[in-house]
């Protein structure tokens, strides 16, 4: 009797571990979000060109990750990209109105991320505000085109 109880317990534990494993894979590996997580607040930023930026990309400040890209959509009013950033709520009210957001690339072939740098404005950005000072992604083709055009002028 005791042995069979132990066995049942073992099997139950095994199946529970399997279910927990699926949940871990879902949340931590594929990034299904079920609410929770850290408290964040959102900011908007419009970019003329986001290059290869994807949602869930990092948002950094002085190299430190402070949030993620939550959503990217086309703003049909200006025909530019409207990027929603989810930032750590400890930064709420700490970023000045003239904060700059630029799309940067880690390494030559690395992922693209957003770098923030603060300005000197005494007014601060609140939840849902828009960052106006943005710098688009570096698109290699445009760069080469410019370079070739300059070469031709010389």
């Amino acid at each position, binding site marked *: 009797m005791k042995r069979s109880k132990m*066995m*049942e317990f*073992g*099997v139950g*534990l*095994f*199946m529970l*571990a*399997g279910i927990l*494993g*699926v949940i*871990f*894979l*879902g949340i*931590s*590996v*594929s*990034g*299904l979000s079920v609410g929770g997580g850290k408290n964040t607040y959102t900011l908007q930023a419009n970019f003329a060109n986001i290059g290869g930026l*994807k*949602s*869930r*990309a*990092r948002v950094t400040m002085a190299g430190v*990750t402070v949030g*993620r890209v939550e959503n990217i959509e086309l703003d049909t009013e200006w025909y530019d990209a409207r990027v929603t950033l989810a930032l750590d709520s400890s930064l709420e009210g700490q970023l000045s109105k003239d904060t700059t957001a630029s799309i940067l690339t*880690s*390494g*030559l*072939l*690395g*992922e693209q991320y957003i770098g923030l740098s603060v300005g000197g404005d005494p007014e601060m950005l609140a939840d849902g505000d828009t960052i106006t000072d943005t710098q688009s992604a570096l698109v290699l083709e445009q760069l080469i085109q410019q370079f070739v055009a300059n070469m031709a002028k010389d």
Partner: protein
Amino acid sequence: MMTRITRLGRHGCDLVEALGRAGMFLGQSLVGRPSAEGFKLWLRQMHFIGVLSLAIVLVSGLFIGMVLALQGFTILVDFGAEDALGQMVALSLLRELAPVVAALLFAGRAGSALTAEIGLMKATEQLSSMEMIGVDPLKRVVAPRLWAGFVSLPLLTVGFSVIGIWGGHLVGVEWLGVYNGSYWGNMQSSVDFVDDIGNGMLKSLVFALVVTWIAVFQGYDLVPTSEGISRATTRTVVYSSLAVLGLDFVLTALMFGELG
């Protein structure tokens, strides 16, 4: 010459016959309503097939994840793309390595044991004595083992993936110094729950079906001698490994490939 042609024909007929027997065997075992007694038998098999296979599967998963991270890092670092390590480890484990390697280990660890056990039952005429006293050996012996196999292998595959990803994290982040955020962040942005995890699980379910079916049928259908048992055990491992690898290509082509 004539005898050769007749032998070829006989082999062909035998093959088709065996296939038919295997199909009927599977159908007869799986049809039937669940009972408390059957559940107990299933539980016992779950313990033997699933829980006791956990150790070998988890240890293999850990080492495969670690080696993937190590190999991936040495290549990715040349391109300055070591941030993509998490993505590489997770995708190769979830889509390919976890279902296939877990199924191969499962065939070796549990499949061969199933064949030998049922084969010995047949050789010592336990199965025919069961029939004598009016107990259907398909329901009593075969069905619990089949169901236990179908449930265990997908669960083992999940364990394999989880511990492999953790092993990759150990090597990549803790030892080689990949940034922890990009390991998980890149993984999360590239792994899709349905496309990658779901398809991986589907693969593993198909493998579970095939491996357990082959193992149990080989045991049930063998020539009841000691030589017959040893041959059937070998056949189980060989057939199920080939079936897993072959089916894996077909499934991959259907799920992820551009061939379909």
